[in-house]
């Protein structure tokens, strides 16, 4: 799974972020699997119920599309756009 995730990852034109309500997460992994840019990962830490909530690997990979929020069955995560990404270079797109 991690290889497929790594393949999706590239620096995005826009910078996004996610907010996770850690105690509401049930660790189903929908957000990690279906994130179009592979920006999420289940964290090693766990919440009170013993589930591993997702976390952002690197903010450069998230463009704030909020698909994680649309998939999350527990209403625990949502994404939002912060602004243009200063680390984005045009030739990055060509790769």
């Amino acid at each position, binding site marked *: 799974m991690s290889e497929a995730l790594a393949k999706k990852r590239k620096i995005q034109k826009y910078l996004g972020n*996610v*907010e996770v309500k850690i105690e509401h997460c049930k660790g*189903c992994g*929908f957000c990690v*699997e279906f994130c179009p840019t592979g920006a999420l990962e289940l964290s090693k830490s766990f919440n009170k119920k013993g589930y591993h909530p997702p976390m952002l690997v690197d903010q450069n990979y998230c463009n704030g599309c909020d698909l994680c929020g*649309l998939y*999350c*069955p527990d*209403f625990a995560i*949502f994404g939002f756009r912060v602004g243009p990404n200063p680390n984005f270079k045009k030739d990055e797109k060509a790769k």
Partner: protein
Amino acid sequence: MSEQTNHTEGEPRVNPVLPYLREDRMPHIWCPGCGIGTTVNCFARALTESELDLDKVSIVSGIGCTGRVAGYMNLDAFHTTHGRPVAFATGLKLANPDLKVVVYSGDGDLMAIGGNHFIHACRRNIDMTIVCVNNFLYGMTGGQASSTTPDPATTTTAPYGAFEHTFNLPFLADSCGAVYVARWTTYHVRQITKAMKEALAKKGLSFIEIISPCPTLYQRRNKLGDGLQAMEYYRDNSVVKSGADTREVEIKYQGEIICGKFVDRERATWLDCYNTRNAAAIGARYRPYPWRENGEGGVK
């Protein structure tokens, strides 16, 4: 319940779905990997996009896992007895035709126990939206075989595998007269949102079937993995065929799932037919229902 988040800096942001939920009821009772929460997300976003007055939207559910949706949504809601959400919603719609009535329930509740109410609501073409979350069995009551359990899936009441012929829900709705029929899986979140938006705007009975994983009872008993594996199966095995003949969209066990918008047509609703008939029979004395405060409607 603590509200711990990973929020670090700036103004706290609010999940766009949260205004539609009763926050004090969260976290909900649905299992990890269950798709019902995903459909609620889509419904909330469809409500946002369709810009409806939320005081005029009411949601009716029956018994079952999906029946809990009425309790979790911050709308006028009613949690009816088993199998009777369509009957209740019919009364609600006719008592107050200004309401946008949404029936949100599961396959066991709507199609097995409440099947008769469903076919007659389709026949009468009552103006409402029916969302059926199909997980192929009765979830909350313990995983009994329902009218949609495919041969040879194992359930608690079919330990050697279900053997009955199943309902083909889009065909049932289509043949009974629904004006909008669509089927999607919980993997197709954007399409569900769009379908719900169209269904809310459609006049007449619109029916959306959503295939959802049941990791605790259906997936586990049939050794199909967890909710995530079910979602991957939907991604790999669903075929989008909008406008397909509903006779050919039956679901086989672990087979291809044909998704799409199958029916979108115009047909007079029950209330229109009622007013037309009475106007023809009574003549000029008849004022069409609903009767308004400004004196419109009613028999003079």
